[in-house]
């Protein structure tokens, strides 16, 4: 039962959250100092043009009615038109989203692959040199200004010791793979274009590492804390008392139980990742949503900014829902009774 009721409760919350996002973005759009019609029409527009634009946007109607129109548009997937690119925001986002996802997923995988073993090791050798080093790395990760770290790594590995590319998704001169998913790694593999694959992978290294670094610290700390909890559980002692090997005790008995509470962290990490991606993409000229939104901010392109906010919030909420469900599926007590 708890599984179903939790899902229902989360879906109700989801509706509220989405409504909340709509209210928030709508309010923010109306907070903009100055006249949106003026922004769209330009400074030198005549009074007539302004009135026309205002009518087009429905700005002459009462606020409540405007909100209804806004929600109706959102529900039909219409996020408005970008002032900067003059294209529908939804289309722009669909265009740039895969690049961001490719970067984010690579970074997350990197952070997990380094962070989990590091957390396990520092729990096993608590207070030893590995633990101390891991602690410094995690605090550094949490305290690192992403945008500066990116620049520093470019300076180091692109300028001083030129071994890694410092910008873009693929080497200039190598054609991007034909778009199927928008993920260069996937598309180039599908097309069997290994040259493009290696080039894309090569271009992912620095930005993905920069993005992974902050989450690395959070993951390491979480895994360490829950491993320490689990290692003093009675069932770990049972496993040891029955002569199971050290690796079996750690990998089969302690780690799975330590990972379960850490799963929830992934949802939160996604929020950080999203935000980190905005900065990382700017630094590495990565043609994704982050670069798109920063350019939009710099040109005060509000439809684009709000469209991004809505999509990001929705993605965040859905990912967290998925993560919570995964968490419940992993816990046999909930799974078997649910």
């Amino acid at each position, binding site marked *: 039962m708890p599984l179903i009721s939790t899902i229902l409760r989360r879906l109700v919350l989801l509706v509220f959250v989405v409504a909340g996002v709509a209210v928030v973005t709508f309010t923010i759009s109306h907070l903009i100092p100055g006249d949106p019609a003026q922004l769209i029409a330009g400074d030198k527009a005549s009074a007539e043009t302004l009135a026309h634009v205002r009518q087009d946007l429905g700005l002459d109607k009462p606020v409540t009615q405007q909100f209804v129109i806004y929600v109706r548009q959102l529900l039909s997937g219409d996020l408005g038109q970008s002032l900067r690119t003059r294209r529908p925001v939804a289309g722009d986002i669909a265009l740039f989203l895969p690049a961001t996802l490719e970067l984010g997923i690579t970074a997350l995988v990197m952070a997990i692959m380094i962070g989990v073993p590091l957390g396990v090791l520092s729990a096993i050798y608590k207070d030893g040199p590995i633990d101390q080093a891991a602690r410094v790395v995690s605090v550094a990760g949490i305290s690192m200004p992403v945008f500066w770290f990116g620049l520093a790594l470019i300076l180091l590995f692109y300028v001083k010791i030129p071994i890694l590319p410092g910008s873009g998704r693929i080497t200039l001169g190598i054609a991007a793979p034909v778009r199927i998913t928008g993920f260069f790694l996937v598309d180039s593999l599908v097309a069997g274009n290994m040259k493009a694959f290696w080039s894309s992978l090569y271009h992912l290294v620095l930005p993905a590492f920069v993005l992974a670094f902050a989450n690395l610290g959070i993951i390491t700390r979480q895994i360490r804390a829950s491993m320490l909890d689990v290692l003093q*559980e*009675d*069932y770990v*002692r*049972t*496993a*040891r*008392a*029955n*002569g*199971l*090997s*050290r690796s*079996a005790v750690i990998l*089969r*008995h302690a780690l*799975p*139980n330590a990972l*379960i509470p850490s799963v929830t962290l992934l949802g939160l990490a996604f929020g950080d990742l999203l935000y980190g991606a905005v900065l990382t993409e700017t630094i590495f000229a990565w043609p994704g949503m982050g670069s798109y939104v920063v350019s939009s901010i710099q040109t005060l392109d509000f439809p684009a900014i709000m469209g991004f906010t809505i999509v990001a919030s929705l993605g965040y909420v859905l990912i967290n829902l998925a993560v919570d469900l995964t968490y419940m599926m*992993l*816990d*046999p*007590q909930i799974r*078997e009774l649910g």
Partner: protein
Amino acid sequence: MSEPSGDVLLEISDLSLVFRTSRGPIKALNGVSLNVRAGEIVGIVGESGCGKSVTMMAATRLLPKGSAHITAGGIRLFGNDPMKLSERELQHVRGKLVSTIFQEPMNALNPTRRIGEQIVEIIRRHQRLDAKAATSKAIGLLRDMLISEPERIMQAYPFELSGGMRQRVLIAMAFSCEPKLIIADEPTTALDVTVQALILSLIKHKAASTGTAVVFISHDMAVVSQLCDRLYVLYAGRVAEAGTTASVLAAPAHPYTRALIRCLPGLVAPKQPLEQILGTLPDLLDPPAGCLFKARCREADERCKAVPPLAAIGAARRAACWRRIEETQSA
């Protein structure tokens, strides 16, 4: 009555052990000596914190590496010093030669794995059996524990079982690789009295049929007296008294043993008031000089300012009390 004459499986001699803490060293064990021979059931009795579990966990090296330090004495487990064994050799000893049943069956089983997987894993670790043979062996073990529908239990997760069931699973696990010695650390403390009796008889019969020696740790004199051939009474990290169960119950030599027995309803003559032992265990951070029981002892006198040795006071009987030692010498 003489001591049984089987092989000595475990011999602890004059073991002293401290826990290093931020407040200073806690002297948990002060010269504990005991031995266990093949096939016998030995009880270790004493109130909480007297060093029962610590002694046995030291023997299987399950104490936390950083804080527990052996300061004197030695342990021989199946002829080896467990402190000198490699991690690998130690894993062979644990489970295969000696295994432990812990108290509090609540968390003693991994909550995210099925019962069957956990038993089979241990069986296959120590015996050359394929998955199928190991599974049928595990089912047999569960059946020996009077678990009905063992096949269904094999598929269950720990949270789906009652405390008594989980304890039986743990016992089955401990017997799974036919060890020579089983350490049962208060296996019935968390259970109902009715379940308690069942668990005790299961351990007793399984041990008798396999010839396994059992060290039974308990704070409950009544439980120990039902089960054990011999017993050791521990007080504040020292052995207060040792002997066969029958002789100790018939004529307890140490005032602490007497007090423990007098706390029990049923073991004393009817209508005699039950007693409580006044005071608490001494502070092992800063233990008082002399006999550690003297502050709580009604018979304490001048002699008790010195530490009494654990001396023979009869056939297969030893006690650490000046009064008894002098009586024996004068007799």
